[in-house]
């Protein structure tokens, strides 16, 4: 053996060991709470609680948070991604679809992989991406031209690239993929146009498709008769936000989008299953186990693409495997995630299109609250009470934390995009990058972070903002709630009282959820605002 080949042999042996050490196994992803220094999936674990067991930042020292670094994306798109943290490396997306690896302590780049989506890629609401998934040492990203990419987490090399659906047919992918065992599962967005929504699973190693579930049943399948005529072919029902997974039942849960056309249901009479629903899929087969429809025959664009939050709670004195859901339609739900049983529902903002539920949990519509020629004022607004931003559940407080709008409303006009109600057309405009002057009064909607008791769905406390919010929520074992909004503030609240502990003005709108991680014993919390990612930690001498 020559000296060189000997050296290579040693290097190769070391490499083999090192690669094993770096593997993010599915077991690690499932039990992300056991390694709180990391953040291994979109909302921390497949339960999507967006809760961290880290305790360094507390209600007493949060006032000492200070900026550690900023990473500015080369992008003029909204920054909606939540980063992953893996052993000192942050992985995030520079919109639309560039993948970036950053040093988690300094924000300095290790590598950037650029991806140019096909020119025909179309999205309804910005060329955005909400984040990556990781398994082993491979990253996964859905793209706005409806491809699924696998990248080497060490180098950014693209390992495979699978077309999930055709961008020419208006499909796109904006959600972070869901990892289940050896599969990568994604859904297709584009449901404001004439698509037929899909959720598909791919082999994580090869990108080969394993199964595909259509969110609109085909002829002969149960539910197809909830679409009149051929409307099922182009009925929309996109899937564009992170799913959840429960290993006990092997079910993956996804929220589905609105039926199309959005604001006029005359061409698609019926309940339009499985629009505006949560679908529970067997992850081995892709078969539907159960579903619950939040808004049958929706004509208000009330996508139910919120992030499903799974929690084991005491519900009315009994342990319950629950799913908590604050819906765009203004109603909040507790479901049994094993069976799909409706356990409790309640309006959490001003709602006038429904006034309760029947015994099976079907919302009871208020007569006349439909789009009309003259226009009908409907609450909440077409953008919802909350839209897609990820909420949080703290197992310490047992509370469900949601950032949302209050007092919003819309004028539903037959066959038209719903107008804002009142004199201010910018009532609940979508998130943008830059700060905008704000002139609304409280009758024209405002933003809140509220802490809800899952047993009653009543708010324990409220933190009020002047403007609405498109920001998500993070809770930690330090009993701190982090959130931010359209006004460009990032703030920390007391998880038990809602008291403001700290705030920072970031100079751009918050359109993402916060996350937290630690490196070398130091806890960081990040938030994207404008087109940048900000990292905060306690001041060096602070305790």
């Amino acid at each position, binding site marked *: 053996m020559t000296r060189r*080949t000997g050296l290579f042999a040693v*290097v*190769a042996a070391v490499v083999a060991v*090192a690669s094993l050490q770096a593997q993010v196994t599915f077991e690690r992803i499932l039990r992300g709470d056991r390694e709180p220094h990391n953040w291994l999936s979109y909302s921390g674990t497949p339960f999507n609680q967006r809760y961290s067991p880290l305790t360094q930042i507390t209600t007493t020292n949060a006032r000492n948070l200070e900026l550690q670094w900023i990473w500015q994306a080369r992008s003029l798109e909204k920054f909606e991604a939540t980063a992953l943290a893996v052993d000192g490396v942050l992985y995030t997306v520079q919109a639309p679809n560039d993948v970036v690896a950053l040093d988690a302590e300094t924000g300095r780049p290790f590598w950037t992989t650029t991806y140019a989506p096909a020119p025909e890629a179309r999205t309804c609401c910005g060329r955005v991406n909400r984040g990556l998934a990781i398994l082993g040492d491979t990253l996964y990203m859905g793209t706005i031209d409806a491809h699924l990419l696998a990248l080497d987490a*060490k180098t950014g090399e693209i390992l495979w690239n699978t077309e999930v659906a055709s961008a020419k047919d208006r499909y796109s992918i904006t959600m972070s993929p869901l990892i289940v065992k050896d599969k990568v599962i994604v859904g297709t967005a584009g449901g404001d146009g004439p698509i037929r929504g899909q959720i598909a699973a791919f082999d994580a190693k*090869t990108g080969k498709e394993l199964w595909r579930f259509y969110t609109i049943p085909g002829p002969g399948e149960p539910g197809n008769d909830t679409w009149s005529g051929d409307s099922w072919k182009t009925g929309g029902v996109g899937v564009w936000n992170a799913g959840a997974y429960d290993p006990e039942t092997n079910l993956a849960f996804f929220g589905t989008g609105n039926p199309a056309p959005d604001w006029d249901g005359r061409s698609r009479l019926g309940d339009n299953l499985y629009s505006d629903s949560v679908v529970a899929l067997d992850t081995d087969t892709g078969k539907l186990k159960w579903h619950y429809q939040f808004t049958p025959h929706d004509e208000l664009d009330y996508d139910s693409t919120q992030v499903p939050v799974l929690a084991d709670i005491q519900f009315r004195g009994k342990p319950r495997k629950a799913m908590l859901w604050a819906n765009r339609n203004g109603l909040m739900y507790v479901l049994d995630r094993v069976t799909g049983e409706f356990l409790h529902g309640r309006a959490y903002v001003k709602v006038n299109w429904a006034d309760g539920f029947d015994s099976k949990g079907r919302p009871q519509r208020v007569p006349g609250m439909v789009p009309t020629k003259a226009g009908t004022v409907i609450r909440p607004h077409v953008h919802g009470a909350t839209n897609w931003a990820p909420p949080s559940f703290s197992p310490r407080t047992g509370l469900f934390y949601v950032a949302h709008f209050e007092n919003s409303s819309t004028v539903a006009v037959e066959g038209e995009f719903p107008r804002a109600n009142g004199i201010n057309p910018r009532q609940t405009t979508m998130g943008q990058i830059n700060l905008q002057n704000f002139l609304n009064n409280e009758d024209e909607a405002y933003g809140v972070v509220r802490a809800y008791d899952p047993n009653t769905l009543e708010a324990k406390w409220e933190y009020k903002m002047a403007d609405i919010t498109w920001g998500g929520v993070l809770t930690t074992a330090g009993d701190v709630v982090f959130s931010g909004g359209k006004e460009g503030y990032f703030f920390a609240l007391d998880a038990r009282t809602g008291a403001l502990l700290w705030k920072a003005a970031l100079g751009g709108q918050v359109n993402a959820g916060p996350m937290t991680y630690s490196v070398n014993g130091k806890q960081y919390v990040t938030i994207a605002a404008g087109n940048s990612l900000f990292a905060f930690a306690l001041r060096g001498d602070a305790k």
Partner: protein
Amino acid sequence: MPNARFKMQMRSRAAHLLFGSAVFAFCILTFALPATAQHETASDIEDGGRVFRQSCANCHGPDGNEIPGIDLGRGVFKTAKTDEDLVRIIQKGVPGTPMPATNMSDEQAKRVVAYLRSTAATKTSATAVGDAARGKALFEGKGGCVKCHRVNGVGARIGPDLTRIGQLRQSANLERSLVDPAAEVLPTGRFYRVVTKDGATVSGRLLNIDTFTVQMIDTKEQLRSFTKANLKEHGFIPSPMPSYKATFNTQELADVVSYLVSLKGRGTP
């Protein structure tokens, strides 16, 4: 799965990285360049290479040989016989072919020509006609290249990933890197070594460096970041890439070069 669309994407990515806008299509003509150089400087040639990669390579390829009958890197054209002919074609295009006119100045066009002449002059050894399949076997076997380099997801990440190297470098450069690797180390192949204040030594391929910090992928394939204030010493070190002059014979060298040239992205050859 890798498919035609994917290949297009990879090409588009490489094009984005290297070439920029497509101009210069279906050039030129058949003939052999005279060996005499003009009075260009090394930086003129470098500038010319940059312009070539940005404006010409998208159609002609990085080696200038992707259009049948034309091999710009080896002085094989269709009709051009002099530098002046080449400058004219670069500026005015070739009517009736996809080769468009450009807005290059005389100076810019001359630099591109100087670059083409320099690459023709440096075409090495060679001589032997390589076989990519044999080269792959040598790359993965006798050469031990996969102990540091990665191709299509196989191999180590200590050295640069070579999955797309055929899109990025010319055969002459590749051959030189194999025979005399220290002659030209691209910035993405530079190695760095740090010694922490507690005495730990870490070396690896440099990914980023700034006034206060250093990022690298170390020899254990870990992404590492260091704050310079916490280091006892740090600095560039020679690349561990060995010379294969004594390892490969002429034919083997040509085979490995052929293999590397064939690597145009995931799934190739």
